[in-house]
């Protein structure tokens, strides 16, 4: 029989509804899997007692006929979601010891619907990174191993500094690793420039960043407020659809939350794509793109064409400016959002000669190098004399990027198909050169979507020559998530479910 933690979220839900498995049994299987996988570094805090107490309460609700849509399903929560009385630090040292007195809206809705919390997941510090290597709590290993590595070799690296093992991507690296390693049925994640889609692509999992405003940002540690959006990572398209329905919805506590009904996304899974127009943007054929990524992309087009969709060439002329514009807008907003960490109200405090020195010493001790770099860039581009040249110009370019997409949608395009990442996963410690831009290029295909506020989904579509997962990205119209789920299911069916690695780490 399949291990309980290897069920999909939908299968687990159905097994619970049929009462062939109890929430406590399902949760215990996951608690055990999490404990045995500690060396991967996916979780930064485990909450097994709470998980089992929640599962017990779920079983009581199931017995009394009050089960919610996620009743008894164990999930992992990215460390940037505020969870009441539980470690919430966005994996930064500066939030040392922080335990919020409140619950984020998104996680609150998951518990409302009956889900069970296994603990908090590792991530890049303040979600700034593409490999999970900027976390104060150290890197996360992907359950996928480097080509030609033996299990013994991988285990030895895991017991040491993890160097050479594969990154799960970032910033939602803990989420992607935990889902791919069957430590939780699904996980919350967040996406500012690609932080859901890139790790999903690197680990053979599915991730969706919904339309900006679809999920409440209340209680999520802020990075760049006009780009941040919550979303799930799960093992199937259907599981993502189930998760998003519970995570999404209007929240008066977030002024950018959109007051629109939440569809039953699962109903869109398996929907026909006949007659849908799928755009192929020529600007995504970037210089130096590898043959295998190009082949994957063409394979995706063939699958959709075979399912009755119409493949059309489109142009998004400002694509190449999205990443540089992002590296003005995101750091600018981050420098403002992270001004709150001053050693007074929460987290770390370092001693200083006077109050100003206390601020400076606290922030020097509390922020890691990548966060410091981005705060400094943001401070610079917002400083007197540079605001118009950098920040306002970048926001104008953002308008042009959005207009490119609007023109395509106006011409009848229903969704856009692109590669999710320019390469498969790389090794821990491999991209630590003096040039931070090298790492930023990971987000070249995903960042446009955040700049335009659109929904984007990454779905596994095949393996690289070396046997590592590769993903395709689907970009939708604003609030076009249902179309993305329908199209993504075609890709998942055609590619076949990814065979995730056996647990070599235990």
């Amino acid at each position, binding site marked *: 029989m399949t291990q309980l933690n290897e069920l999909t979220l939908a299968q687990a839900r159905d097994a619970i509804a049929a009462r062939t498995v109890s929430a406590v049994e399902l949760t215990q299987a996951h608690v055990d899997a999490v404990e045995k996988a500690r060396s991967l570094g996916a979780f930064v805090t485990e909450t097994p007692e709470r998980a089992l107490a929640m599962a017990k309460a779920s079983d009581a609700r199931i017995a009394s006929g009050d089960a919610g849509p996620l009743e008894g399903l164990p999930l992992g929560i990215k460390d940037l979601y505020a969870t009441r009385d539980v470690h919430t630090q966005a994996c930064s040292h500066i939030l040392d010891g922080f335990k919020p007195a409140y619950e984020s809206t998104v996680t609150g809705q998951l518990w409302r619907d009956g889900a069970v919390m296994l603990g908090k997941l590792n991530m890049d510090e303040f979600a700034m990174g593409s490999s999970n290597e900027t976390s104060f709590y150290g890197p996360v290993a992907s359950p996928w191993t480097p080509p030609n590595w033996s299990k013994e070799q991988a285990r030895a690296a895991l017991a040491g500094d993890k160097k050479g093992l594969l990154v799960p991507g970032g910033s939602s690296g803990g989420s992607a690793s935990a889902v791919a390693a069957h430590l939780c049925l699904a996980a919350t994640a967040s996406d500012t420039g690609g932080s859901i889609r890139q790790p999903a692509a690197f680990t053979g999992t599915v991730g969706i960043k919904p339309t900006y405003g679809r999920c409440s940002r209340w209680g999520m540690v802020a990075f760049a407020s006009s780009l941040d959006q919550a979303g799930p990572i799960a093992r199937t398209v259907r599981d993502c659809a189930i998760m998003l329905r519970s995570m999404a919805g209007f929240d008066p506590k977030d002024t950018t939350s959109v007051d629109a009904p939440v569809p039953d996304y699962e109903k869109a899974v398996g929907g026909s794509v006949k007659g849908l127009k799928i755009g192929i943007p020529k600007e995504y054929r970037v210089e130096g793109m590898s043959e295998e990524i190009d082949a994957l992309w063409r394979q995706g087009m063939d699958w959709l064409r075979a399912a009755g969709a119409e493949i059309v060439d489109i142009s998004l002329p*400002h694509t190449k400016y999205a990443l*540089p514009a992002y590296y003005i807008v995101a750091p600018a907003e981050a420098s403002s959002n992270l001004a709150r960490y001053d050693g007074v*109200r929460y987290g770390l405090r370092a001693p200083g000669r*006077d109050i100003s020195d206390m601020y400076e010493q606290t922030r020097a001790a509390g922020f890691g190098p990548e966060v410091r770099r981005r705060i*400094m860039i943001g401070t610079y581009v917002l400083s007197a004399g540079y605001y118009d040249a950098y920040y306002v110009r970048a926001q104008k370019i953002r308008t042009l990027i959005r207009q490119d997409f609007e023109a395509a949608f106006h011409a009848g395009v229903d969704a856009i198909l692109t590669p999710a990442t320019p390469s498969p996963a790389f090794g821990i410690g491999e991209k630590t050169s003096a040039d931070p831009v090298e790492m930023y290029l990971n987000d070249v295909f995903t960042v446009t979507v955040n700049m335009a506020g659109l929904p984007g989904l990454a779905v596994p579509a095949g393996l690289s020559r070396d046997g590592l997962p590769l993903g395709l990205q689907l970009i939708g119209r604003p609030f076009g998530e249902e179309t993305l789920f329908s199209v993504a299911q075609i890709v998942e069916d055609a590619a076949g479910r990814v065979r995730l690695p056996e647990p070599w780490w235990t």
Partner: protein
Amino acid sequence: MSVDQATVRRIAHLARIAVKDEDVPHLQQELNAILAFVEELDAVNVDGVEPMTSVIPMKMRLRADEVTDQAGSAVVVANAPQREDHFFTVPKVVE
């Protein structure tokens, strides 16, 4: 555009992050790498383009100006690294 070392120190101070002297040269190098990367944007004609101010076009909602959070001061200061009674404490500000 690129920054010199004095500018790196000025930015660090504006950002209220203490920077050690030996960190200034590599910070300068990293910041200049990013500034060189974004230079590409100068090539775009943005004449007459409105800057994006709202990601999803929507009307800003207002709410009544009233107390909504009754958590109380004990909860508010609970995470403070230093506190006295229900107050945050900081190094002396006024001589």
